[in-house]
């Protein structure tokens, strides 16, 4: 990509972000709530695809990190009288450390082990947290009482999205991003050109853990009442995967192309046919695998390339 193009996409990104930041001015309660959901998934899916896009490791750990973030805010504020912002500062660090440990244990092995490990991770943390809560801290409800409105949280998430996009932009043009692309192509070659493959993967995975925990912490005031079964819902991980793959992980802005329609679809299904939401997720996975293996963005680029060739 030339420097001129890069500058252009930066300007475009900035304009879109400003537009996104204006949503609270026009949106009412219902649409504000949907916008908040979209902002949340945009951050989660984009940071997910920074790691999983180039490496093809399917991480299902998002719910675990997200839950850790939300739960820490809940327990910190209810059980230890901590300030919301203090907990927001602590949560992502814990998420990052957790991701780091999981990364060094599983990322040196093949992709299957990693998927399986992350698959049950949220569930395991949930059962452990419930157990600790029931036996040691007493099963009190965890309240997150702040005077933040949905619009406030939304703005924080948009800022976080901007940071994630900038980080992604920087990673993509750095040696680290290049290393990840090589790893995704052929890990053996990657090692033989001098890349410490485990370290590169762990760095990115740690980053995604940091971001997911931060999102979980920031959005906690939205739910007011935190319980392990809610914040550690494994479904969240799958939705993030679907959204990111639906949009396409080949481009930094790919995931958001999947986030917006899928979030709206889910909203519609949950409101009207809530018993079918699992089935819809299943169909979404199948559609991605069989019809959109490179996501909507990849498909559009493919079509454009074809048209480009035929008009020449």
């Amino acid at each position: 990509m030339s420097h001129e193009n890069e500058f252009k996409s930066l300007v475009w990104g900035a304009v879109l972000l400003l537009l996104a930041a204006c949503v609270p001015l026009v949106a009412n309660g219902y649409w504000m709530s949907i916008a908040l959901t979209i902002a949340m998934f945009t951050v989660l899916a984009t940071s997910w695809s920074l790691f999983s896009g180039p490496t093809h490791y399917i991480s299902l750990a998002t719910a675990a990190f997200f839950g850790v973030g939300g739960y820490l805010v809940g327990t910190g504020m209810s059980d230890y009288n901590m300030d919301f912002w203090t907990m927001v500062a602590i949560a992502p660090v814990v998420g990052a450390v957790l991701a780091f440990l999981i990364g060094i244990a599983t990322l040196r092995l093949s992709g299957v082990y990693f998927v399986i490990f992350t698959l049950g991770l949220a569930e395991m943390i949930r059962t452990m947290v419930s157990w600790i809560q029931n036996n040691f801290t007493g099963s009190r409800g965890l309240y997150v009482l702040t005077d933040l409105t949905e619009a406030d949280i939304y703005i924080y998430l948009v800022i976080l999205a901007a940071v994630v996009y900038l980080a992604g932009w920087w990673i993509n043009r750095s040696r680290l991003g290049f290393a990840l692309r090589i790893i995704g192509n052929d890990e053996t070659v990657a090692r033989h050109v001098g890349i410490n493959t485990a370290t590169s993967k762990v760095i990115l995975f740690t980053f995604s853990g940091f971001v997911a925990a931060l999102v979980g912490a920031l959005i906690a005031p939205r739910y007011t009442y935190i319980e392990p079964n809610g914040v550690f819902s494994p479904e969240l991980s799958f939705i993030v995967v679907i959204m990111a793959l639906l949009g396409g992980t080949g481009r930094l802005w790919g995931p958001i192309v999947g986030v917006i329609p899928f979030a709206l679809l889910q909203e519609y299904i949950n409101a009207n046919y809530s018993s079918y939401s699992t089935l819809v997720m299943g169909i979404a996975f199948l559609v991605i695998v069989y019809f959109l293996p490179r996501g909507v963005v990849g498909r559009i680029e493919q079509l454009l390339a074809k048209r480009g060739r035929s008009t020449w």
Partner: protein
Amino acid sequence: MDIIITGLLLGGTYALIAFGLNMQYGVARIMNLANGEFLVLGALAAFWIFVADSISPILTMLIVAPLAFFGNWVIYKALLMPLVRRAKNKGQLEVDSILATFGMSFALVGIMVSIHGEYFTYSYLAEPFEIVGETFALNRIVAFCFAVLIGVALWLWLFFTRPGMAMRAVSVSTEASGLVGINVQKMSALAFALGGAVTTMGGTLISTFITLDASVGVIFTMKALIIIIMGGVGDIRGAIVAALILGLVETTVARLIDPGLTLAAAYAIFVLVLLFRPQGLFGRKPT
């Protein structure tokens, strides 16, 4: 003693379920994450038929097995073969099959929830039975015996028949098997179908003593995967030992600490295996 026997009984059924997944992963080389849903389907069928006509789950198993065999065969031919064909390398097939089977898993859960959204509660052979002075539920013992029976039958088939030998050959090397005239595609489809049928039978058996619901399949997929990884992919002896260890540990944790922590215990084993013996209990160090 009580814990050990209960643990071993549970482990026997786990071994059967893992056997099913092991055939799908070891021979057809598809990591089938919808495997647990077939287990739940087996349980659902048992529950349904038992409640409607009070037919014994053991009989249901005989009806369910060929259906599951056929269903899995169709899934392999219609949905997974195209992925095998289009995959440029092993990694891509792995990612594709993981995503596709996740899709099937969710779709099946969605369908089962719409059929029966509550727990599959029924009572079959919930009578006391005495072994070495301690009492156990008869249904656990019956399930264990049938699991052993099916397992032994499969083992005999794999080791003493021509198709069984062909299947073992494919599990060692798809390429070499093709070269010696084995129809690898046919064997893969057969193994996938057979694996699915075995897991479904396991589900029918397990439903006699554990109450399941439509969404619980993924937990069993996880357990089967943990067993396979602990035992070493394709290693039957390792899988049996791993299944018994898992059954024992889960039962011990449930009895002595908290039933809510069984999954955490299974996970702890998994982490230890990944850290110290990623090649499996009896596996050689990968080269």
